[in-house]
Structures are given as structure tokens and as C-alpha cells.
């Protein structure tokens, strides 16, 4: 965290000064470990075993937060009998279909109570329903209908209860297993488990922070699930100083999943309509994506408001609010699939905006060669990045590549207005300071004027398929004449939502309607524009220094920026109070129930009426939720409200059900739906691993999607040519693909060359000295690098076998002030079943002395999905001999390149004095 989010680490250091224990578990001893209280080395890709071991320690010694687990998690729910766990099926869950490598989730469902009448989704208000028969999905799958609440055993003794299943599942993860799989010494692991347990409970909380070290694995989602289960058992979710914080890497990567330029999502995490679920019309779509109980009951309002925002008057109840204008997917259109199709020439045109796949892309060489198959490609970036020069990549002859390429200059943050969403869901507005240089323009300008031109080209088309473009609400007022820059106020109003009648901003998503009377581009951002029209993302009034939780005037800096949803800073903060609404402890109180004061009228609250109360299904009680944050609970719903088994939406949840987005209102230790690779996390070895899976017979994630084609094949398992485990990571001084740091002299000089960190033992084994040139090889390619021999890397003992780990920063490419080989060429494009992410954090490679020598053969464009894995033991395909593309303007030797100011300009400033004075 100190490496890639140093400023966030301020608060960790502040906590350490107040007595907090900082535990750092990482394959490498990093700058975070330097200031940690306890550092434990571990093998990359084995986090499920490590965290599972802690869960097992807590369950065996009864150290979990009993009241919290009983009332706020689904520990007491009963699972139906025919569910079988991996310990019975050799690593698989029940319902596994080996042929097309998928799970059928029927056997994972809860035992549910019978329901008096089968209430269906009320179609009347949305529009005519094209087809009536409902397909034969599993009970729960058929979210269109309301099923009864699950059976429960409050004593948590029933073997079918989630708690007992959990206990049995994790009983396998003993400290010895952790030492065997992760390589972390047993005493060190026990020390950490004990510290975590001691620092959780009523008046202490433990927080988990993770980054792509968790996510970029074949079992990435399940690793985060394990941390979630652990935090639920310890009662750390929804409480100050608890929770799980994802340290995200880009300025608004959170924003780019909220307003998703992702293939499977519409704004606000609505699913994109799909052929596979027969979304013939809006009603069918809503039935497949709607859950009867919980807040997601309001989903129809959000999809209708979105369509209203996009197609305005054209979206009417009669034509399903132009639902059919939206494209439907029929499977996996994710990142990797895009490049497989591109390599096969099925994709003709490409936009790449602010993403440098030449270095940051996975198996970068494969992707750059895929780009060479395009007809045209538009790259927008600040600098001449590697992605823009795919047509002369690795010495390929440009005359053989016919892609028409545009490299469009982009404006940087200081040259445009706009908002970023940071890793804590907080929107912050940045003001435009200066005009962009020359023809550089912001993406707003580019998209707006591209859209205007397309609408012009399609203006007199009569085809049905061109209607979406013609009816698109695309008119934006121009703010700056000389640049023709559109005014973002209209865009932010549309995103935040407005009433169609008077274009007045809605106060929050609670005011959105499903009758087409409101329009909202992204329901979770609703409320970003306050009713008086002011942009709350531009709020810049922080709470005074020194005040903290418990002090009345502390509002969690609510007047600084705007956090979605509804400016709430800690999600599920209802869980910071016990079932009766009293804080668990004075030290860790956040939100609590304030009964109505004697004279009968509820005391007014900053909470605008529009926030939560508007939900028509919440019974009213006297009193309201107050505290240091916007309550994540209906404002006036008393904690003693009983749950209504037949009720819909929030009424189905009791007053002590903090997890309002979940169907059952409680935290999910066991996940019957939503995950593709199992209701509980179980450890599988990374796709390329030096050892067999010591935990189960099943070696890899059974539902992992791999694509063994030429140039993207996996190392043969346990291949002696590639014995070392490699993990990639980022440095403080560089930024992801280096496009924003390797052009900056001050950052380039801090980390000038590609290097890898190896332990002294490995260096002795390969015969390397500190600073020597070495080449890392595997079947996908070869990367030359300098070697940093350091005792911070630790050899591990895995199942009796000594395993070396190598750390590999991945910032370098062939353009920029400092250049180097691209490590991402060594990583295979694979897809984790739930979110389609690749496994970059653990793969195997060989290491030899000396620089790279042999040029790799170009990849063969013909697609062959069932390409046989080549068994060659030697180093497989090797990279081209890339001429280290030194930017011609600057050379490597010690000619300082001015940080943007020439001497004369510098003279005029503070320090220097003009030479001739």
C-alpha cells in the first residue's frame, strides 16, 4: 500500500502511532513491509489457504463475533441436502458439468419455506409482456417470482446450516496446510491469526486492504470472498476501521465501472440485455435481473430512467422505452475475447482511449499483433505511446500492415472539467485550468463532435437499425467558443437524474420512477447534483482536523466531494449498531437508532427526504437513525420492525437486516447464486504452478476459461525449464504501463531500467550478481532485465520442495525517456470465470544469465482454438531482438532533459539567475 498508494498509507501510519498492528502478507518484502509490525512471506496465488487458515483458527477457537454472525449473516440458513462440498468431491462442488465446464447452481440453494401465493412481478406498470411462459430455471434463478425466506436454525448446530458447512469446509485449512501451501512458517501464521482475532470484536475492528494482488488470479474473486467471509465472522463489515478496501490503480477506475465502459454492464451495475436469457423486451429483461426482496426491488425504476435519459421523448411505455435500441450480447465479449476475434480479423475498427495495451495489455505482443489485423484504429493519449505504434512493433515491416491509424492528442486533467470517482466511491470535481496544447482535446469534445457527425451522417436514413442514433439525446450547449468544448453541466444533470416535466434535478435515486416521469443516466450517482443545481462533487469543505468518530460535529467529511450512493461514506453502516439499534461499543459507534423525542414529532435531520424514506414499502416507526455518516438504512425503519415473509422490497427485511442490497438482508457467508465457481472459496493452484494442489485432487479452477492458441499457450505443468514463480507488481515511481511516468524525466530517473528482484540463493543458483543482465523466459516469450539481488525476496518450502519467487515490475516498453522490455509479454490471456480477469500475479518462468539474443517467430494469425499445447522442454518461443527504442530526442547518457522548463525560463523563476546578469 505504501508502494502504490503512499498517501493512503498516511492513515495506516497514523493508526500505527495510535497502537494499531500493521500486518503485511506479500511474496515480497516491500516498502509497506518496512513499516509493518508483522511481515509474512507467502507464495503468490495461495491467499485462499492463508485466509482460510485464519477462518479455520477463528471457527475452531470460537473467536468469531457471535451476535454479529447470528443476526447479520446467513450463518443460520439451512442449505438443501443434495449440496456437496469439495472435500467430498475431490475439489469440486456438486452440480459440475465437466463437458462445458460449468456449474449448475440448483444443488446450492437454501431450503426455503413454502409460500402462500406465488406473487409475480407486477408487469402492468411497465408495458405489454411479449411472452408469458417462464423457462425452467432453478427456483432462485427465477428472480422474477418471490420465493419464501430460507429455513433457519438459530442454534447453528444443524449440519445443513451454513455455519456448520463453513466449519467443515475450512477445517482442512490447518496451520500445517498453510505452511505447506503458502510456505509461511507456522509460528508466523499463528501470530497473524492471533493478532487478527484479538483486534476484532465489539470495540476493536480490523481492516483488510488489497489490490490486484488478490484480483489478478484464476481464483481472484474467491480470494476476495474469503476475506469477506473472514470479516463477516469477525464482525468488521459496516463499522468504522473495518471493511475491505480495494486499492484501485487508476484515477477513476471506480468511475469506469460505475458508469461502465464494460461489455456486460449498463450504468449503475444494471446488466446489459442478453440473448441467452431471452430478453425479448423490457419486462423479460426486468424479470431476469430483478430480485423481489431487498433494495434491488427498485431496479425497474433505474432501467426506465436510463432509457428515458438516453432517448428522451422517443422512449415511451408503448415501445418499451426504446429498450430494443440497446445492443444485446450473446456470451463473452470481454477483453480477451475481443483480441481473439481481432486476431481472426473479425474486428475492423478500434478505439483505444487512454489505455496503453502495448505495455499494460496481457500478452502484449499477442494484442499488438492483433491490432495489426484491423482496418482502422483510433488511439487517443497524451504521448506517443506504444499502443499507437503497433504497426512497427518488434521490427515488423510496416509495409505489410494496412491499418489506418489515428494518434489523437488528448487533454490532461488540468485542461478539462470533469469528475473522478476515487477508490472510496467519492466523486471529486476538477476544474479546467488552462487550454490543452494545439489540437489536443478532451474525450468529451471528441465523443460529442463524433456523435454530432454520426447523427449528421445518419440523419436521413430510414432503416430501423439507425433509429437509436437518430433518437439519441445528444444535444449539449457549447461552453467555450474557441475550442467548441461542450458544457458538462448538462451531462452531470443527466447523470444525476432529473424530472422529465420540469428538468429539475431529483434529490436522490429514491425519487426515480418507473413510469418514465424521471430520467437518470446512472442511478447510483443520483443526488450528485443537489436540488438547488449545485454540483456536490465540487464540495470542498472538509471537517476540521482532530475530530473523529463519536464527536458530534464529525460527518465523515460529508461536505468534501460526493460519495455514491447518497453521499454515504461507509456502506452497510447499519451493522455498526446491534440488532436493537444501540452501538456495539462507545469507541466504535457510527450509526445508531435515536427513538423519537417525547413531544411526538421526529427531530428533523440533515437527511433530505428524498434519500431513503421514499421507499413505499418501509413501515414507519417513531424515531430515526443518526450518527457520523448517512445511515445505509431506511431513515425511520425501527430496528424492531419484524420482517414480512410475504412482503416485497424492503418490507421483506426486518429492522435488523443491515445488508439492504442482499435479497435476504444479511451478509453472505455462503453464496447460493451470483458466483460461477462455487458458493464457498476453495483453493486451486494457479494455472502455471510449480507444485500439485496439496489441498484437493483438482489442480486448477475447474471453470477457468483458457484459450491455448499460438502465442497464448500455457507453460506445460511442472516444467523444469520454468521452475520459478513470478509475480508482477508496480513501483511507487511509475504508473501502470509507464505512459504517464516514462515520459516524465523526474520519475524516469527514479526507476530508469527494467529489473527483477531475486533472492541471494536464486542468484547463486543462476550465477548472477547484483545489477547483472538476465533474461526471463517462458513459452510465451522472453524479457531481458537487470537483476536486483536482495534479501527481501525469500525462498519458500512448498510441500517439501524449495520454490523461488521473482518480483517483476511491469512498467517498461519501447517508447519514452526510459525504455525496456515489456514483462506482460510473459503472461497468458486467461479468464477467471466470474469477472474474466487474467492471472498476471502468478505464473512460472525460467531465468538465465545474459541479455536476450534470439528473435521470436511472429505469431500465426490463423485461429486454432484447440491448439495442442507444445510440450517442448526448452525455452519455447522467444521474443524478437527488439532494438531498444530509445526516443531519438533524448539519449541515455547524462544529458539532463529539462523537466518542462528550459534554463532561461528557470532563470526567471525562484532559483536561477540569468547567466548574463
Amino acid at each position, binding site marked *: 500500500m505504501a508502494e502504490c498508494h503512499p498517501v493512503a498509507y498516511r492513515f495506516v501510519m497514523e493508526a500505527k502511532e495510535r497502537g494499531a498492528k500493521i500486518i503485511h502478507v506479500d511474496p515480497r518484502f516491500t516498502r509497506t513491509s518496512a513499516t509493518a509490525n508483522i511481515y509474512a512471506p507467502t507464495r503468490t496465488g495461495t491467499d485462499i489457504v492463508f485466509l482460510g487458515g485464519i477462518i479455520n483458527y477463528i471457527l475452531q477457537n470460537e473467536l468469531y463475533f457471535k451476535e454479529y454472525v447470528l443476526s447479520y449473516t446467513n450463518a443460520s440458513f439451512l442449505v438443501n441436502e443434495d449440496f456437496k462440498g469439495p472435500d467430498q468431491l475431490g475439489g469440486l462442488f456438486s452440480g459440475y458439468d465437466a463437458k462445458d465446464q460449468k456449474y449448475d447452481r440448483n444443488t446450492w440453494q437454501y431450503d426455503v419455506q413454502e409460500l402462500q401465493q406465488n406473487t409475480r412481478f407486477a408487469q402492468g406498470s411497465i408495458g405489454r409482456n411479449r411472452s408469458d411462459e417462464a423457462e425452467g430455471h432453478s427456483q432462485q434463478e427465477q428472480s422474477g417470482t418471490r420465493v419464501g425466506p430460507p429455513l433457519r436454525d438459530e442454534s447453528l448446530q444443524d449440519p445443513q446450516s451454513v455455519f456448520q458447512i463453513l466449519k467443515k469446509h475450512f477445517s482442512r485449512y490447518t496451520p500445517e496446510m498453510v505452511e505447506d501451501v503458502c510456505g509461511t512458517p507456522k509460528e508466523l501464521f499463528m501470530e497473524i491469526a492471533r493478532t487478527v482475532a484479538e483486534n476484532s470484536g465489539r470495540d476493536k475492528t480490523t481492516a483488510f486492504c488489497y489490490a490486484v494482488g488478490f484480483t489478478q488470479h484464476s481464483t481472484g474473486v474467491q480470494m476476495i470472498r474469503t476475506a469477506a467471509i473472514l470479516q463477516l465472522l469477525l464482525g468488521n463489515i459496516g463499522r468504522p476501521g473495518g471493511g475491505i478496501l480495494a486499492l484501485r490503480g487508476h484515477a477513476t477506475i471506480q468511475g469506469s465501472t460505475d458508469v461502465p465502459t464494460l461489455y456486460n454492464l449498463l450504468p449503475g451495475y444494471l446488466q446489459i440485455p442478453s440473448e441467452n436469457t431471452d430478453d425479448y423486451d423490457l419486462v423479460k429483461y426486468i424479470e431476469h435481473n430483478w430480485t423481489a426482496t431487498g433494495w434491488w426491488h427498485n431496479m425497474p425504476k433505474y432501467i426506465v430512467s436510463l432509457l428515458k435519459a438516453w432517448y428522451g421523448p422517443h422512449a415511451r411505455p408503448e415501445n418499451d422505452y426504446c429498450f430494443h435500441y440497446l445492443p444485446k450480447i450473446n456470451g463473452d465479449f470481454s477483453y480477451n475475447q475481443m483480441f481473439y476475434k481481432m486476431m481472426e480479423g473479425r474486428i475492423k475498427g478500434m478505439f483505444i482511449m487512454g489505455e496503453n495495451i502495448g505495455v499494460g495489455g496481457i500478452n502484449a505482443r499477442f494484442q499488438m499483433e492483433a491490432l495489426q489485423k484491423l482496418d482502422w484504429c483510433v488511439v487517443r493519449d497524451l504521448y506517443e505511446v506504444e499502443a499507437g505504434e503497433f504497426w512497427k512493433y518488434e521490427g515488423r515491416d510496416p509495409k505489410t500492415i494496412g491499418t489506418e491509424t489515428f494518434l489523437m492528442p488528448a487533454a490532461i486533467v488540468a485542461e478539462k472539467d470533469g469528475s473522478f470517482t476515487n477508490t472510496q466511491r467519492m466523486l471529486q470535481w476538477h476544474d479546467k485550468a488552462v487550454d490543452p496544447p494545439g489540437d489536443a482535446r478532451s474525450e468529451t469534445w471528441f465523443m460529442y463532435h463524433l456523435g454530432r457527425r454520426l447523427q449528421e451522417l445518419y440523419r436521413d436514413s430510414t432503416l430501423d437499425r439507425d433509429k437509436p442514433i437518430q433518437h439519441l439525446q445528444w444535444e449539449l450547449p457549447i461552453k467555450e467558443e474557441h475550442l467548441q468544448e461542450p458544457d458538462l453541466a448538462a451531462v452531470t444533470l443527466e447523470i444525476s437524474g432529473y424530472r422529465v416535466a420540469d428538468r429539475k434535478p431529483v434529490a436522490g435515486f429514491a425519487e426515480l420512477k418507473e413510469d418514465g416521469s424521471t430520467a437518470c443516466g446512472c442511478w447510483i450517482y443520483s443526488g450528485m447534483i443537489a436540488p438547488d443545481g449545485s454540483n456536490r462533487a465540487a464540495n470542498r469543505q472538509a471537517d476540521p*482536523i482532530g475530530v473523529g468518530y463519536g464527536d458530534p460535529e464529525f460527518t465523515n467529511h460529508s461536505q468534501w466531494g460526493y460519495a455514491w450512493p447518497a453521499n454515504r461514506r461507509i456502506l452497510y453502516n447499519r451493522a455498526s449498531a446491534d440488532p436493537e439499534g444501540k452501538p456495539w461499543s462507545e469507541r466504535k459507534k457510527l450509526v445508531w437508532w435515536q427513538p423519537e423525542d417525547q413531544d411526538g414529532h421526529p427531530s428533523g435531520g440533515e437527511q433530505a427526504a428524498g434519500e431513503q424514506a421514499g421507499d413505499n414499502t418501509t413501515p414507519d416507526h417513531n424515531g430515526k437513525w443518526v450518527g457520523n455518516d448517512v445511515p445505509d438504512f431506511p431513515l425511520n425503519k425501527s430496528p424492531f420492525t419484524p420482517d414480512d415473509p410475504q412482503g416485497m422490497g424492503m418490507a421483506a427485511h426486518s429492522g435488523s437486516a443491515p445488508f439492504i442490497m442482499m435479497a435476504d438482508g444479511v451478509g453472505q457467508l455462503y453464496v447460493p447464486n451470483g458466483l460461477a465457481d462455487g458458493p464457498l472459496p476453495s483453493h486451486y493452484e494457479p494455472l502455471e504452478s510449480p507444485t500439485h494442489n496439496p489441498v484437493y485432487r483438482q489442480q486448477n479452477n475447474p471453470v477457468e476459461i483458457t484459450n491455448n492458441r499460438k502465442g497464448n499457450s500455457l507453460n506445460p505443468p511442472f516444467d523444469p525449464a520454468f521452475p520459478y514463480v513470478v509475480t508482477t507488481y508496480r513501483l511507487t515511481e511509475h504508473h501502470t504501463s509507464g505512459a504517464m511516468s516514462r515520459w516524465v524525466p523526474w520519475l524516469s530517473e527514479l526507476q530508469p531500467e527494467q529489473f527483477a528482484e531475486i533472492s541471494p540463493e536464486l542468484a547463486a543458483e543462476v550465477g548472477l550478481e547484483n545489477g547483472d543482465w538476465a533474461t526471463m523466459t517462458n513459452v510465451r516469450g522472453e524479457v531481458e532485465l537487470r537483476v536486483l539481488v536482495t534479501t527481501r525476496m525469500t525462498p519458500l518450502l512448498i510441500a517439501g520442495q524449495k520454490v523461488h519467487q521473482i518480483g517483476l515490475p511491469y512498467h517498461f516498453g519501447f517508447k519514452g525517456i526510459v525504455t525496456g522490455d515489456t514483462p506482460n509479454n510473459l503472461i497468458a490471456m486467461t479468464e477467471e470465470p466470474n469477472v474474466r480477469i487474467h492471472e498476471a500475479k502468478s505464473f512460472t518462468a525460467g531465468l538465465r544469465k545474459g541479455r536476450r539474443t534470439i528473435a521470436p517467430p511472429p505469431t500465426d494469425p490463423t485461429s486454432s482454438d484447440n491448439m495442442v499445447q507444445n510440450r517442448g522442454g526448452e525455452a519455447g518461443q522467444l521474443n524478437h531482438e527488439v532494438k531498444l527504442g530509445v526516443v531519438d530526442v533524448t539519449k541515455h547518457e547524462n544529458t539532463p532533459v529539462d523537466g518542462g522548463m528550459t534554463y532561461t525560463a528557470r532563470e526567471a523563476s525562484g532559483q536561477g539567475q540569468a547567466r548574463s546578469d
Partner: protein
Amino acid sequence: MLGLISSLFAAQNGPVGSPAVPQEARKGRRKKRNLSAQTEFTSYYGRPVVKKPHWVWPIWLYFWAGGISSGASAIATLAHFYGDKDRDKSIVQAGRYISMAGVIISPVLLIIDLQRPERFVNMLRVLKLRSPLSTGTWILTSLGILTGLNTARQVVEDGLVPENTLPGKLALLSSNDVTQFLQGLDGMALGTYTGVLLSATAVPLWANADEAIAPLFLSSAFSTGAAAISLAQAVSGVKADDLHRLDPVEQYAILAELASLGYAYFKLTPEVRKHVIASPFTKSFLAAVWLGMLGPLILKFISPKKGLPGRLFAIIRSLMVLIGGFFLRYAVIEAGKATADDPDAYHSITRGPARGTPEEQARKYSNGRERPFGKGRSTPEQQPNSFQSNNHADGNEGTLPQGNPQDSQYPGSQTR
């Protein structure tokens, strides 16, 4: 005057401002702490601690030429007062001309060495006795003037400029015994300050040799000065018996040089000494000693006195002393720069009882208040700057810790 002198001797015998604690009481100042007991950290990856000066050939030449000019002035003055009026006239004459040449070349060399030569006049902005370079500049300037005056007289006496003309009269008027005496003194100051210039730096060899360098350079100045004068005499055909007038002076100078060199050598710590006896500059030191000192001494005894061979040997001896003098300057400067690049050398001369050991400091500072975990650093009295409330209405961006308990308003800029 006394104040002047005492400012130079600031605290050379004990640490400044604290009662002189006897060394022994501080024994065990830095006990081997357990932390890195096993790893004896001698330096930061072997990188130099101090930075060596950028001096190259201009400074070697300046030290050498300056030395000759200094010796020549001194010997000319001594000859002027104590020498035989007629037999040592040639010494005074040669001495004046040689020192004039030196005094002309030296400033040129110094200005070449300046990285911003056009600002050389800034050197005369201040006089700092604690800065040998500042003092040296004034010495050189004054010597220039004095030598100019005396040499003007010499020129007139030699008839190059007729007496009855205005310049002639002026030259005779302007210089007399006093200016000659001052030139001698100033000359010797020039020979000394170059040594102090080196010892007043943090460069290990020079700092370690300390007060030995000044006498070394002065004696070398005398020997090279004398050699230069006797060379001039020999070349300009002075009568045979006047030729060896300066031999004893040269011998004494050489002996003094050897003594200073020996004294300096024994002052060096082993880490510094290795740069003298086992480094690329050892050959230069040997050349300085054999060619410039021992050689001429030995040669003195075995060389014929009379006739042409005597004159030839005199010339050879003078040349050897001069070349040896140059090697001495070159070796001292370059070896010094080499020690600056060696961290061990610098650490070897800066060991000592600087501060209390961690345990002593902890005891002294804890004054009873055990506070392992306070309310963190965001409590008012503990607030570091970034936890300070820096938001100021007056548009003044981040400001200094206004929250300092004592002074209410930040002490603003008192213009001088």
C-alpha cells in the same frame, strides 16, 4: 588584532559550546547495537560522503607557479637585506623578475579555473579570514601590487627604462625597503595560504594532514624559488662563484620539505595513508621526493663546483627541484581528491564522541513521561504540518505551522 587571530583558532581543541569532556569518559560511546551487529556498515554502498573539488591543471600550475613566485619574493627580500650588496644583486634581480612572472600567471590561472570567470571581481567583495580562498585572493592582489612596484624599480635600475623619464622617477619613488620587506612577507603568506586552503576542507587527506600542509608548501616554495633564481643566474651567465650562493638556502628548504612531508605522513590514518603509499599517485609522490628533494641534495655533494660542468649541474639541480615541486603539488591535490571519493577514509577521520548513544538519549529525553501510544499525531499538540489545519481564508495556500503553541503569528520575514 588579537580578536582577528582568536577567530582563527575557534575551538580547535575541543567540541564547541560544551564542557570539554575527557575522551575516556565517553568510552563505549557507540556500543555494538544488536540490530546490525552482524553487519558492520562502513558506508552507504561505498559511495563518497564528501564531494571532491573540480580542480585540475589550472590549480596544479597555480600552486606551483604561486610557490615559485612566493619563494622568489622571499629570497629576493632576504638577499636584499642580508645578502652581499654586489654579489647577491643578481639574486634580487632574478627574484624580482621571477616573482613578477608568477604573480602575473597566477591570477590568470585562477580565473581560468572559475566556472563563471566573468564574476572574478566578486572575490574582492568580502574579506573572510576564516576562508583561506578569500584571504588568499587579498594576499595575491597585494603581492601583485608590491611585486609590481619593486620590479618597476628593478627595471629602472637595470636601465631598461631611463631614470629621468616620468615612469622612471615614479618607479624609484614608489618602492623602497619597506615595500621590498612587505613583498617578502606577502610572498611567504602566499606560500602558506595555499597549504591552509587545502587543510580547511573536508577532503580526508588534507583534513587529516591538517597543519602539516602549510609548512610543506612553504618550504617547497622556498626550494623551488631558490632553484628558479639559481637557474636564472646560471642561465644568465653569472660569475661562477656567485652561482652557489643559494645552495644552502635550497638545502635548508629541502630539509624543511622532507621534515614537513614526514610529519604529514605520520599524521595520516591508515585508510587515508593507503591513498599515498598504494595508489596511482604513489609514483608522483616518489617523483616529488626523489626528483625534487633527495636527488638535488645528493647531487649537490657529488657535482663539480667549477667551470662549465658546475654550471651545467647547477642548472640540472634547479630543474630537478622545480619539476619535483610540480609533482609534489600535483600529487597532494590528486591524492586528496582520491581520498574524497573513498568513504572509509572520511569516516576514519570523523569518528568520535558526537552524541549520546540511543540509550543515553532515551533516558535523557524521556523525563519520566512514558507514552508508547498517544492519541497519534493528529492530536493538537502533536500535529505535524499535513495534519495541521492549513486552510486559510486569505488565499494563502498551505502555510507554516500556525498551530505552534508559542508564537502566535509566524515570525514573518524580517528584511535585513
